[in-house]
């Protein structure tokens, strides 16, 4: 969607995820807020701001759309690329700690899966941009955690999640502002009483 709500939703997800690592009791709040309330809030917001401007459409669902081979291939590529990077950056692939610092890169690269899904669904290649940006961001954060080792092994991952979430939130809000500005509300004369 052009309204930016998907980015805002994903932004919330990534900025809130570190809270679970900091305090596992946040998981219940996370589930209630993110899984139950946020999608409903987004739908209400779409009813108010999106549908009166560009209309409502439910894309055709294809049950055979799931592609396990593609996902497995991506997983294999991620593991191989991470192993190569661990070798280049630390020269010690056997030390599991070195794999922890690769978590931001691994997570960043797995974002290519939703990118591929969006490219497939919309036909717009611009969605590859998201997966590429997250991969580069993950690589940069993994590199920084190698150069300046943090206190906790998950700190790199948390930093990645927060930076990505903040970026998505800001990007989503800008997109929403532009959407509102460029798409005025369409007034239709739908009047049931006058219809035969």
């Amino acid at each position, binding site marked *: 969607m052009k309204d930016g709500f998907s980015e805002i939703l994903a932004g919330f997800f990534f900025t809130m995820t570190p809270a679970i690592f900091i305090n596992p009791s946040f998981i219940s709040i996370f589930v209630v807020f993110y899984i139950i309330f946020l999608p409903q809030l987004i739908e209400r917001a779409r*009813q*108010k701001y999106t*549908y*009166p*401007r*560009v*209309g*409502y*459409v*439910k*894309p*055709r*669902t294809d049950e055979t759309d799931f592609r396990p081979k593609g996902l497995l291939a991506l997983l294999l590529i991620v593991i191989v690329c991470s192993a190569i990077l661990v070798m280049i950056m630390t020269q010690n692939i056997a030390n599991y700690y070195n794999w922890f610092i690769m978590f931001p890169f691994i997570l960043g690269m797995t974002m290519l899966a939703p990118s591929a899904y969006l490219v497939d669904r919309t036909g717009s290649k611009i969605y590859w941009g998201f997966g590429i940006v997250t991969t580069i961001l993950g690589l940069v954060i993994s590199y920084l955690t190698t150069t300046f080792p943090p206190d906790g092994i998950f700190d790199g991952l948390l930093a990645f999640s927060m930076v990505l979430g903040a970026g998505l939130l800001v990007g989503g809000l800008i997109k929403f502002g532009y959407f509102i500005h460029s798409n005025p509300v*369409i007034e*239709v*004369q*739908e*009047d*049931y009483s006058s*219809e035969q």
Partner: protein
Amino acid sequence: MSNEDRGFPLEIDKIIHEPARLQIMTQLYVVDEADFIYIMRQTGLTWGNLSSHMSKLEEAGYIDVKKEFQEKKPHTILSMTKSGRVAFEKYRKMLDKVFEGLKD
């Protein structure tokens, strides 16, 4: 190939074989459902035009029209019925036959 082999004389569905209705059917074929505004934007039809063609397609049983209220405003949702989908696919095959073997 003789005309009979190619399915001639053509039995083109006159309900679908009208530019505005063809546009509406094409839009609805690729989605599960869409509302009035979405179809208006995609087809460029005016409210009156869309409303009239929508009624014809509904009478033919090709589309389903659901009316509800959203934010206290009337909201019309359109979707293609099974028979509409069958008719559209048949129409598409018929047109393919017409252009079959035609050089660029």
